[in-house]
């Protein structure tokens, strides 16, 4: 019986050694993991996850410094895909967000540049004391422009 135990143990040891050698020598699907995680994020750059952009959040996820369910624009689908990629549990979303774009009420806008400077994807055009407007097709709905506006002229229009 001891011979049997010893044989199996030796086989297991040999197999383990082989596998670790293989994982070191043979090229696996290395590729930058942060880049792979970043690809799955919606690139809204809204900072709702607590990180200043999608790539910093991706880096934090890879370092295991952040949970994978913090991205509202990505929705449940992104949580699931991240869970599949990283082998972690697919938790429910921490908070949800309906897809929307920002709209400037032109009758109130004073051309102060505050919103333009803060938009992470440069979706607002305007110059000092000129009317500002939001390029709807590029707006990611991150809501970062709403707070800085001194006359409260920006609102979110839901996308149906």
């Amino acid at each position, binding site marked *: 019986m001891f011979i049997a135990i010893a044989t199996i143990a030796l086989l297991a040891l040999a197999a383990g050694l082989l596998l670790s050698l293989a994982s070191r020598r043979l090229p696996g699907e290395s590729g930058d993991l942060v880049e792979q995680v970043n690809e799955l*994020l*919606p690139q*809204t750059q809204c900072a709702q996850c607590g990180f200043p952009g*999608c790539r910093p959040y991706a880096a934090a996820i890879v370092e295991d410094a952040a949970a994978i369910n913090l991205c509202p624009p990505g929705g449940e689908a992104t949580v699931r895909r991240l869970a599949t990629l990283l082998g972690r549990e697919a938790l429910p979303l921490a908070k949800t967000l309906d897809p929307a774009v920002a709209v400037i009420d032109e009758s109130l806008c004073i051309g102060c540049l505050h919103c333009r400077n803060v938009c992470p*994807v*440069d*979706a607002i055009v305007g110059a000092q004391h000129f009317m500002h407007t939001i390029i709807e097709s*590029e707006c990611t709905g991150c809501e970062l422009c709403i707070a800085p506006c001194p006359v409260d002229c920006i609102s979110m229009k839901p996308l149906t």
Partner: protein
Amino acid sequence: MHRTVPRGLHQHETAHVSAPTYDLGKLHGGLRLPGHKAASTTEPVRDVPLPAQLILPLAQHVGDPAQPVVNTGDYVLKGQLLAEPDGTLGAPVHASSSGTVLAIEPWPVSQRLGEPAPCIILECDGEDRPIEATRRTAHYTELDPEELLSTILSGGIVGLGGAVFPTAQKLMQARTSSIDHLILNGIECEPYISCDDMLMRERATEVLSGAQVLMHALQIDSCFVAVESDKPEALASLAIAMTELDDERLVLKQVPTIYPSGGEDQLVQLICNREVPSTGLPTDVGCLVQNVGTAAAVHDWIIGQEPLISRITTVAGDGIANPMNVRARIGTTIADIVALTGGYAESADHLIIGGPMTGKSISTDRVPLVKATNSILVVLKTSFTGRELPCIRCGDCAAVCPVQLLPQQLHWHARADDEKKLREFSLVDCIECGCCDLVCPSHIPLTASFRVAKGRIQELADEKARAARARARFEARNSRLERDKEKREAELAQQKSSAKRAGPEAIAEIMRRKKRQSEDD
């Protein structure tokens, strides 16, 4: 190429057509379906009388909706231009009869399954006065192909097989590739539909004459007329007409009655034995396909000088009291047409524009007949049986798929919402023919789930493109801010160093300036 009909056949002799089938290409899969065409083909095509109102949608074709050129209150004549094409892809809309424009407003249309879309509503005066045809002095054979094509465009001609692609633009696109063959699609493989059959029986000469016009427009000299073997009368009628026309370029081809051999790509494969590349067009392999109805409409416009204002439509199904084929003006409501044929049967549950395999189910019969309406089919609830079970991996769906897809795998991956795998298994090549649904023992609605999955793939692709754009803008902004920061730092450093160098002198100069200023004050 070879003659398939003996010369010298007199009109009263029935041609025994034995168009050879040994030189046909091979079609994978497909089904032999019960035709259900006998009920609607016993009588000749009946004319639907002019209704009180005609509803003409502005978007009866692929492309941008036409723009109206008339206003409410205008009196128009039959055949008058009511809306002109907008943009690069479109077709005009003509008045199907004379009358007054009552309104230009939304009305339920079949393209939107019963939801409203902008239409021109015409109140007919009953006199049916035609517009004076502009005398065309030249015969079409003397026209330049480009001129001929713009003339075809102005007639409102679109593909009458159901796809309603503007014919002129299709021909224009074909002229940019090298085309060998024109194929006239008289297959009509879908059950119940028989409008093309009746057209070929009653107006074979016009169909072939239209083919000749098309060949001139394309500058080619080969045309195959493809008809299924379940239409012996149509084959005979075409054979007689071909003999009379005595045009070497026209060849009649009989194909076995298999659904869906009438699909464009499948027909090219059958007739010319060439495979149309995925996401490509038949013109990529040197063929152009046109429906026989389109050819007849081309004849009516170019030679008969009447634009596309009417078409033959099959009215059939268990929910119809008297199935038949009718010729109606574009704009007549389905309700009026069904009423003319004798109304609905005792029970009528679903109204379908098109056939039982690929038709569109619509919510109301107030929709008008449009250029795309080849068939009005009313079916009963009882034709749907069985409940859905899990897939038992029998593989019958793959055996009948004309595109040689694996519907079973597509079904698994569609359920898993796995976009990558759906692309890998070529979901985009699915022609939504419905063959896989009919053989599935588990009664899984495969075609519907593929339709949804295709939409999903498009949605995901759009989302990805949006995200990529947002990311590019974000990174561009970051690098711009970086550059600005560096520039400012460099300027500041330069200021500091120049101030350091010229420091004491500059300070002295400032002191002198200040002294002068205070002295001046």
